[in-house]
């Protein structure tokens, strides 16, 4: 008696349900298709210039002779210094928030909300900060490696803090109690038990943060970085250019050959990012402990 009712219902609904399922799949598919198309387009376009000259030559006004050498070295310098600055500070802030701070206090809650907000502040605003404070303004460093690194460090600091906090929080409390019960001080507990256990997570998060820094162009452009450099940086106070800026520079040229060069440099940039991410995944899978 009930079976016709059941059947009618399921008949109409099944089609609707299938259509909905298909729609959802296509939403996800859109993203993935875009990803594939983008990669294919960039690689095919850049292929003619993907050769050793790209790494060996400095930028030049003649597209045939131009390369990304100073940009690659600049990226290594700026992101390297950025990492040296941001990882210790970010981990320290994360340790403070997770291990010391009483989060019922208003000022500690302010820090937390503030970090969440900073993570979402547009990157160009960090560029304005760098322009008004570092490269000009009070510090007046000029457009040098240190100014670029500091700007990027402030930009990715919230990411390092947030990911490190997660890694520290994942260390079970029984480890801390075990150390305290042996007469360890708070810092001994953190330094010798909590931190070593959290290192894989912190490393993964830091790599991801630095890969964000590698791709940033907007804040550095604002610092005054759209210059034409035919030498590698030699220190914290030397001018520099980085890959994304060099790419932007080439995109803005009218000649098609520069676009090909830009595509080739993009492939290099993406290759760096993919290796970093692969390394992060490797670290996570290899060392991360599941409690």
């Amino acid at each position, binding site marked *: 008696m009930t079976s016709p009712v059941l059947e009618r219902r399921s008949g109409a609904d099944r089609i609707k349900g299938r259509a909905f399922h298909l729609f959802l799949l296509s939403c996800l598919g859109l993203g993935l298709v875009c990803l594939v198309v983008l990669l294919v387009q960039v690689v095919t376009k850049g292929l003619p210039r993907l050769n050793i000259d790209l790494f060996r030559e400095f930028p030049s006004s003649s597209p045939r002779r131009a390369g990304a050498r100073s940009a690659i070295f600049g990226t290594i310098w700026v992101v390297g210094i950025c990492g040296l600055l941001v990882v210790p500070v970010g981990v320290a802030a994360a340790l403070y928030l997770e291990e010391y701070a009483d989060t019922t206090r208003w000022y500690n809650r302010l820090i937390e909300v503030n970090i969440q907000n900073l993570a979402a502040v547009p990157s160009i605003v960090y560029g304005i900060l760098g322009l008004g404070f570092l490269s000009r303004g009070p510090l007046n460093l000029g457009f040098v490696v240190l100014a670029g690194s500091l700007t990027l460090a402030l930009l990715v600091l919230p990411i390092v803090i947030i990911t490190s906090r997660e890694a520290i929080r994942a260390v079970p409390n029984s480890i801390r109690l075990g150390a305290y019960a042996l007469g360890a001080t708070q810092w001994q507990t953190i330094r010798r038990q909590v931190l070593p256990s959290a290192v894989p997570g912190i490393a993964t998060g830091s790599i991801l943060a630095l890969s964000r820094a590698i791709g940033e162009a907007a804040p550095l452009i604002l610092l005054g970085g759209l210059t034409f450099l035919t030498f590698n940086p030699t220190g914290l106070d030397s001018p520099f250019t980085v890959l*994304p800026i060099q790419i932007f520079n080439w995109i803005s040229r009218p000649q098609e050959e520069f676009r090909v060069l830009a595509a080739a440099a993009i492939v290099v940039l993406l290759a760096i990012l993919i290796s970093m991410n692969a390394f992060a995944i490797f670290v996570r899978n290899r060392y991360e402990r599941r409690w």
Partner: protein
Amino acid sequence: MTAPELAASPDLGLGSQSLLQASRPRYSEQVIKSVLALCGFLSIGTTVAIIGSLAVPTVEFFSEVSVVEFFTTREWAPLFADAKFGVLPLVTGTLVTTLVALAVCIPFGLGAAIYLSEYAQRRRRAILKPLLEILAGIPTVVYGFFALTFVTPLLRDVWFLPGEAPTVFNALSAGLVMGVMILPTVASLSEDAMTAVPQSLRQGAYGLGSNKMQVSTRVVLPAALSGIVAAFVLAISRAMGETMIVLIAAGGTPNLSLNPAEGMQTLTAFIAAAGIGDQPTGSTGYKTIFAVGSTLFAVTFVLNFLSIRLVRRFREVYE
């Protein structure tokens, strides 16, 4: 060490008060704590520095250009000899590119989120989600290149809508690509919100004979709403703050228009372009960067806080 003797003769009646005192004061513990706290407070310093670096030139700017002129006149040409300071064209530029981006990332991001949270099996989800998140890790300059050299030519070739085909620089292709860039953020945050909805709610609905689509759209979606709205708000903030894509693909001409097929300049693109122009420190052109930057910062600041509040409200309900 006194411990062994102590263990050997526990009831010695140790009168000495020093027994349980620290053998030496632990200053280093305090020093370390202070250093760590300092690093924590550094983030507040960053915000203060941002506001500080924006505020001073902005105030100076508005002593030279009236606020009314800034927000109401319709022409933006601050770097010309005959300077015009009407920010509206930049605002509409930002508005149009943002709306186009939202039109992509909200429906498709939400759809992907529903799929990942309600439909995909665990194994498939574990593969698809990281794949989708690769999109969020691609540098924006790459997206800009893609918009300019692939999406725009494609749009111009296949244009079938009424009106002129898009120009070489146009808001449409910048917005579309920006939408793809933000899609994983929307998908990921919405999915987090939906997976936090307790299983019992779903089971209750299935018990009443609902099918998967009904459960997803009528039970899970409303229950996760504030978390999902938080994702949308964050998406708006991201789209408004994006620079490189619009700088590369939407062109550099301020244009008071709502037609996405035209080229236009956004707030962010103006800031970057003015930075490229290397304004002398202290000139009106230099201060303009900060005035526009303040406008951008203020709007995204409000959006970010709204998003943080919404997420917090959502967490309080379910966690």
